[in-house]
């Protein structure tokens, strides 16, 4: 396809962001945000193909962020989101789904697992080409 997919990592832990970046950077363009609010700001300035979202974050947590996001105008609202968190009880998974997460992985995530799911969820379609 025409260009590399862009991924926005939303996590307050810099180590986690770095870990993801190292795994994904060879194949994807990576953006980072420290919390939900910052992520929303970034999304308005440039479209992305996939969000990787942590749940427990200061200012605006992952679930509030996704709820807000999904109710925005269609272009932004329909960005797929992969939630990666330590919370993995059935109730947590249901809450993530209710907020609009497309899939949930449990921390810590193995590099090959991350790469595999991100690749599947992104496929090869540039951002902004569909709702």
């Amino acid at each position, binding site marked *: 396809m025409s260009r590399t997919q862009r991924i926005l990592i939303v996590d307050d832990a810099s180590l986690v962001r770095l870990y993801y970046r190292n795994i994904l950077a060879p194949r994807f363009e990576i953006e980072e945000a420290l919390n939900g609010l910052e992520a929303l700001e970034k999304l308005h300035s440039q479209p992305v193909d996939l969000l990787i979202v942590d749940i427990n974050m200061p200012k605006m947590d992952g679930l509030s962020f996704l709820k807000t996001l*999904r109710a925005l105008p269609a272009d932004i609202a329909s960005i797929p989101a992969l939630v990666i968190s330590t919370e993995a009880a059935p109730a947590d998974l249901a809450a993530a789904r209710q907020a609009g997460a497309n899939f949930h992985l449990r921390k810590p995530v193995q590099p090959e697992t991350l790469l595999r799911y991100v690749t599947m969820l992104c496929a090869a379609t540039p951002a902004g080409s569909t709702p």
Partner: protein
Amino acid sequence: MNEFLEQFLIESRELVEQATADLLALEHAPENRAVLDSAFRAFHTLKGAAGIMDFTAMARSTHAVEDLLAAVRAGAQELNAGTVNQCLACLDQITIWLDRIEAEDALPEDAEAAPPVANEPPPAATQAASALPADAIEVLREQLALIALPPDAGFFGRLGAAGKVCRNVLSHFDYHPEAADIETALNLLKAAFAPAEVPPTTPAPTTPAAEADAASAPARSLRVDVARIEDIVNLTGELIVAKNALTHIVQTLDNQQNLGHDLQALSTRFNRLTTGLLRAVLATRVLPLQRVFQRFPRLLREIATRLDKPVRLVIIGEATEADKVIVEALFEPILHVLRNAIDHGIEPGAQRLAAAKPATASITLRGRRDGDQVVVEIEDDGNGIDPAAILETALRRRLITPDAAAQLPEAEILNLIFLPGFSTAREVSDISGRGVGMDAVRAAVERLGGRVLLHSRPGTGTTVSFLLPFTVMMTRVLTLHAGGQVFGVPLDEVAETVKLPADRILPVGGTEAIILHGRTIPFLRLDQLLGLPQQLGLAAENPATGSDMLNAAIVQAGGGELAALQVDRFGSQLDVILKPMEGLLAGMPGVAGSTLTGDGRVLIVLEPRDLLRSSGSGHANA
């Protein structure tokens, strides 16, 4: 019929046709991925439609074929004649179901009892169905759960995101047609919310122009129920009848001051408009010849297999359009000519080899537009038609006397095959020679207002051409029996049919009249008007109606007047294509034209106004 069911029928039939065409194409080009995908999609969509209708039997059989094709796609199953047959059998079953649904206006109740068609799916099929890895399936399941959540403010966002994920996962694992389906849905979703998603602060999205067009361009075609178009055609027909009446009145007014003049101008305009309307309306009723052509590859394959004569069908010009009435009536005649071509035209393998022809014979089915005509040609590369054999058969069947045969010009000999009862088949096969011959073909084509031409090139092949009109205007006629014969009268000319006692007929001067609805109208015997021998004892013919009841058609006599035409009895109503009278009969007064009835007889259609005027049996304005 309920709209839902109707839509299901329309869509399913289209898909069955599509799938049939794809499968036949695949048999010759199994490696054609695009065609395989198209066939797969057709079955997939059929399955989906069956699911929506809760038609389990159909969903199950289409699902089995889908699995089979998935296995083919995954390279786990070979696509051969057997696989194709399995898929075609499923389509046959679906067609049977669809026919029943159409007839009974409901889903067949015992469809559950029908055996699943692809009943022994190869083991590879199951393997292919799970060609998606478990984690991908898990992701897809999660998207379904996401979509199924109760709607709230985030509903459309979730829907869009889930759709994108499904599309991405599917296309990642090479399920491109399915991914494209979702893409389409996503674009629709986007289009549906386009007006709401222009935040004033955001610059216009830099979507490629082509894509924006695809999302926002209005549909260029509509799917309209044929019955509605027929209604419009019929209304237009009635409008034209009214126009003709107006023209007639205007002519009788002639030069009665300015009124006549103004009316004439108006009438001319009316004339032009109705003609234009008719043309426009008939143009909506066109279909591509493909509609009928596409049924033949499959049939030809079967016939050729049964007769053990390998044949390749080449279809050219299937996009050529013709009136729906014509396209729908062409199936039988074309099929018959094709059967003849394979049965009689194409030589057995050994003979073809001896003649240095390719072992696989070829038949070309060609459609083209030629001015106002649509031409359909069926051309084979067989042995042509042997005039000597034709002559011999005609003599043997006593279709022609030896004297006449001796005088018959060479060019006329071939036309003997159009005689009823002619067949050159040495033995009656189950393919052709079943009593219907080229005479039936000719009758069918002539009924459509067309002609059949035959061209034979001895040793190299035969071409049968149908020359057909582009549009067809059907006239509804009522048949009448009078003087021992049957005639037609355009229904628009008939105001009423009545049965009245003989004593209601009043002598008026030298003629007769009846009183109907308080008006005195002339009463005439149709057999007398036509100079036919009178049938005696009319009333006795129909004892059930009493001793002296008479049948009469109340017809338009021109100038707004009516006349009663006594007939022996009334027949039925038919939709026919009127052909003007030709040759010596061209100027015959009182005749609108002729038509061929379903049983091949000529029906003379009368024009009552003209008939009454020319008979001098005066109406008011004569």
